[in-house]
């Protein structure tokens, strides 16, 4: 059973269906006991970093999520990926879940913001499960990006600057783009996460 953390930030119908299509049972919940029972934790989210942090704190989810990230396969998607980092600078300063070291800062680019649309992935060396997604296009919608150590970056996209697309620290993964909106490639990336998580 995959648990999608439902904390009031954005619609999760597509994320949920994407996992169901891969043959998994899915539960949408902000209940800690339910999250503890799940095989995988998915933290989605659309909106601002600060608002999301407030929602998580108000529901008493911060400490449980930090603990679960040590225990089982964990995936943050879009804003959920950004929340994995230490600090965010959207709408002022706020503390994230601090599971992966790094900050969330406005993208510095000459191109239009938000960074919206289909962009190609460059997969870093040494990430075999994701190699087949080299040069594949995925759908991004965001204005802020992760600034983190290269060793946590699995894949990135070029947008006048290097934008991290997939990050990883041990069993914790983050995906900046929307795999649930990225067609078959996106579904394939979710599948790769599920397979990696089982190791």
């Amino acid at each position, binding site marked *: 059973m995959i648990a999608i953390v439902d904390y009031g930030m954005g619609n999760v*119908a*597509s994320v949920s269906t994407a996992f169901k299509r891969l043959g998994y049972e899915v539960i949408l919940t902000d209940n800690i006991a339910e999250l503890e029972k799940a095989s995988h934790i998915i933290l989605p989210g659309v909106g601002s970093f600060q608002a999301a942090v407030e929602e998580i704190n108000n529901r008493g989810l911060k400490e449980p999520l930090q603990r679960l990230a040590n225990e089982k396969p964990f995936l943050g998607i879009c804003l959920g990926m950004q929340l994995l980092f230490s600090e965010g600078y959207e709408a002022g300063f706020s503390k994230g879940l601090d599971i992966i070291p790094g900050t969330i800062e406005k993208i510095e680019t000459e191109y239009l913001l*938000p960074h*919206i*649309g*289909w962009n190609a992935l460059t997969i870093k060396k040494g990430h075999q499960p994701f190699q087949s997604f080299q040069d594949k*296009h995925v759908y991004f919608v965001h204005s802020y990006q992760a600034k983190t150590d290269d060793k946590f970056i699995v894949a990135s996209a*070029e947008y006048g600057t290097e934008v991290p697309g997939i990050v990883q620290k041990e069993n914790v993964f983050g995906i900046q783009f929307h795999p649930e909106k990225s*067609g*078959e490639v996106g579904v394939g990336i979710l599948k790769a996460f599920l397979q990696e998580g089982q190791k």
Partner: protein
Amino acid sequence: MIVKRIIPCLDVKEGKVVKGTNFVSLRELGDPVAMASLYSKHGADEIIFLDISATNEGRQTMVDIVKDTAENVFVPFTVGGGVRTIDDVTRLLKAGADKVGMNSAAVANPELITESSLRFGAQCIVVAIDAKRFEDGWHVMTHGGSKDSGIDAIEWAKTAEQKGAGEILLTSVDTDGVKDGFDIELTKTVVDAVRIPVIASGGCGTPEHFSEVFEKTDVSAALAASIFHEETFSIRQVKDSCKKQGVNIREA
């Protein structure tokens, strides 16, 4: 780099896909969710639904279609048509739409753009502009392209951006349904006047019309309806043609 998007548009009336020529004489085509799903499998980069229902029942049906689409289609989709209030925007986004388009209501009340953009983020607010050429320039047409607002379309595009629009869906009323190519001059003028993505619409009849609008303007996306619905050309053919012309597109 970001690719140029190829977007099929589905005009939906009372729950069924239809397409008009010059905004009149509709004919029924099919099931919106099935068609959107098929287009996404064929490589559409995004889907746009335009709800042209005249009844409340029709609008409610659209919400159900949006829910169904969110569960069955794995590319982003936009819903426009009949969006009048922030409640309409909320209802469609909550049902699972990635973006919401607004047209006449935004012209009547530009604050609707600001209010929606502040609440949900500019990335999900699309302002649709129907423009028609007059002696003194392009005017914004409202009510399905039938009513001249007297407002300059280029100025309105700039205002929409300032008010918080994340994208402009630009339809040329002059070329719509004519199948003789996109309105290059109008598209170029609007694209050069704003710093948000613009989707060109109206007039596409062949795959080459797509590559032409991408070559001659900096437009981010282009939309067509009938050439796809009538199976005159497939999305694959459009992408092959664009690729041959050196347009950066997504291989799907």
